[in-house]
């Protein structure tokens, strides 16, 4: 029996900001969920199950917050489950929800992800003082910066490429009312002269810390016919994982990422992602990860990703726009960041991305990763239903 086609008929986000002191966690997730239901033209009673994700419990110090959120998300009397895959969780949460529809377990599923970073301590949560271990000698950026240097060495990329990504994403964010950072006067010179935190990573090339939530309503073919707005159709979705550290791990282009992308393209019938995909929302927490992921995801040959960035191909008006929403570099409620990528890809193929819409997007890729390049989750969505 074939899988049930899965449609995204509702997308909702909060306005992402540094701190939402005015709402509880329940109030925060509720806002995104209500907006997704409104977009889908549905009520709480139309939802059959709820699938939620957030970063590890340590971040906010509440064990299993999903239990307390059941009332806010209309989940009482329905199945509710939580997905845990570190920074990629927003993506894998959406995929678990999509699989429930594809497998005809449920017809209409609400999926959402959140983080209230202002009330958490991610740095602390990630660096517990484990006895006998040598303490980590650098912050979060210090974990990633050596891999960026390795990429620069391997590819021969000029050291300005990272600043081009940050400048692009921050300008794209100005067109996205939900983005956290809205730096209206930003210039390339400002990015390039911002403090070097973890050389080669500058301050302006790092992601912010945000409070926010993102929600989607996924439904089957019948549900899609009742959608008041065009749906996005899931053409392929996959997850892959690998250990954080192992002998032979390629930190610059992890195999789990390559394999995950290949699986998604195979499902979607994509043979030339560079030509056949119109827009990409990828998880870029530090600017240099754009060229790195362009290679890992098959949009460029090894060592060539930076040339696409440098040539302007990934700009909003380029022929492969990357992160038209402004990306993680402009908005980072950690647990939600992956789902925002998936949701923004859906908005693009639905033609509902507003000012940051890439005209004529028929196929878009949403990408998430996390846990020290350990977990990968991706989906490819299209404006037309999958064939068959």
């Amino acid at each position, binding site marked *: 029996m074939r899988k049930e086609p899965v449609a995204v008929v509702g997308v909702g986000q909060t306005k992402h900001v540094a701190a939402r*002191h005015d709402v509880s966690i329940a109030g925060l997730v509720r806002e995104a969920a209500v907006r997704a239901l409104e977009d889908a033209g549905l009520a*709480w009673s139309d939802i059959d199950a709820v699938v939620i994700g957030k970063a590890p419990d340590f971040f906010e110090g509440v064990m299993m917050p999903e239990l307390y959120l059941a009332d806010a998300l209309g989940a009482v009397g329905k199945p509710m489950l939580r997905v845990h895959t570190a920074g990629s969780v927003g993506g894998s949460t959406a995929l678990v929800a999509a699989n429930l529809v594809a497998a005809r377990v449920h017809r209409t599923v609400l999926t959402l992800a959140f983080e209230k970073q202002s*009330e958490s301590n991610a740095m602390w949560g990630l660096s517990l003082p484990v006895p*006998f271990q040598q*303490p980590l000698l*650098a912050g979060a950026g210090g974990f990633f910066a050596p891999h960026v240097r*390795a990429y620069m060495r391997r590819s021969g990329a000029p050291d300005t490429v990272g600043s081009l990504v940050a400048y692009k994403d921050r300008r794209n964010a100005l067109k996205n009312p939900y983005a956290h950072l809205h730096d209206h006067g930003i210039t390339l010179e400002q990015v390039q002269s911002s403090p*070097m*935190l973890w050389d080669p990573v500058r301050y302006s090339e790092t992601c912010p810390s945000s409070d926010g939530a993102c929600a989607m309503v996924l439904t089957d073919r019948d549900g899609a016919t009742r959608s008041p707005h065009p749906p996005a159709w899931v053409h392929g979705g996959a997850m892959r994982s690998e250990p954080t550290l192992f*002998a032979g791990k390629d930190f610059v282009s992890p195999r789990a990422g390559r394999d995950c992308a290949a699986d998604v393209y195979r499902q979607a019938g994509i043979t030339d992602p560079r030509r056949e995909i119109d827009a990409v929302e990828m998880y870029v927490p530090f600017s240099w990860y754009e060229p790195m992921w362009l290679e890992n995801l098959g949009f460029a040959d090894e060592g060539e990703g930076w040339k696409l960035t440098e040539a302007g191909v990934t700009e909003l008006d380029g022929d492969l726009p990357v992160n038209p929403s402004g990306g993680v570099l402009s908005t980072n409620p950690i647990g939600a960041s992956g789902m925002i990528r998936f949701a923004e890809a859906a908005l693009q193929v639905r033609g509902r991305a507003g000012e940051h819409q890439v005209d004529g997007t028929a196929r878009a890729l949403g990408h998430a990763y996390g846990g020290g390049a350990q977990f990968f989750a991706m989906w490819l969505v299209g404006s037309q239903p999958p064939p068959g």
Partner: protein
Amino acid sequence: MSDVLSAPLVVEFPFTRSLGPVQSAFLTGLRERTVLGVRTDDGTVLVPPVEYDPVTANELRDLVEVAPTGTVTTWAWNPSPRRDQPLDTPFAWVLVRLDGASTALLHALDAPGPESVRTGMRVRVRWAAARTGAITDIACFEPYEGAAAGGEPAPHTGEFADPVTGIVAPARLDYTHTPGRAQSAYLAALEGRRTVGERCPACRKVYVPPRGACPTCGVATAEQVEVGPRGTVTTFCIVNIKAKNLDIEVPYVYAHIALDGADLALHGRIAGIPYDQVRMGLRVEPVWVDGVRHPDHYRPTGEPDADYDTYKELV
């Protein structure tokens, strides 16, 4: 396994919580000796109140004031109170349905012994002397002889002067951490300033520090292999911001170092060379200081740099 190490690991942090409108009113009310509940769509009065209706999922904002007296609906005796519990003498955990409420609130009942507690007994709030807007503003409940207050609970705006909008929720977890056989052996070797990894019997890769198993092949490792002491900087970054808990002057170099014979880089600080002269391929050796288990840092050996091709698989 007496050579396996073990030590306490305490995970502790004071988290903050924004309350939102309903919990803000509830906790501020306690500060003012007022217990608030919320009326749901079907007329049920929930105490403590919640923001969203458990049945209809609608937003709830219809606050009411209930009495500080109520009835025990069930209980459990706590003979030996632990740190941070409401009372430091034996007490009963009770569910109390306050007069006017439809649901029960969990709290402590101050009673001389379990024989003096029963379901259906009447109790009242004992207010804390100093109240801040927290559930602990109810110090506990105490026995009370009065009859149930009658009538419907009165509507309440939930508005108070100087409302509490957030709380601090200290969290603490106490673990006993043991690094296990393989890492204990690694740590023991470090005492002698030797670095000993383990080789996978299948792929022959040498893991430093060893984990006792190969993450790629999924088989146990046992063959010990001494590596280093010299190694090659495979990649690095220059840290320009001072980390809170580290007493290291910035800028400094944080590097991935592949010790000779190891198939995985470990992490360390590079010193003994100006930070801006560190490069990929730099040959380094550990510098030990007395009383510290791990190398303090690594310094250049003076050898020629390693050729990129010799370590590129380790980057």
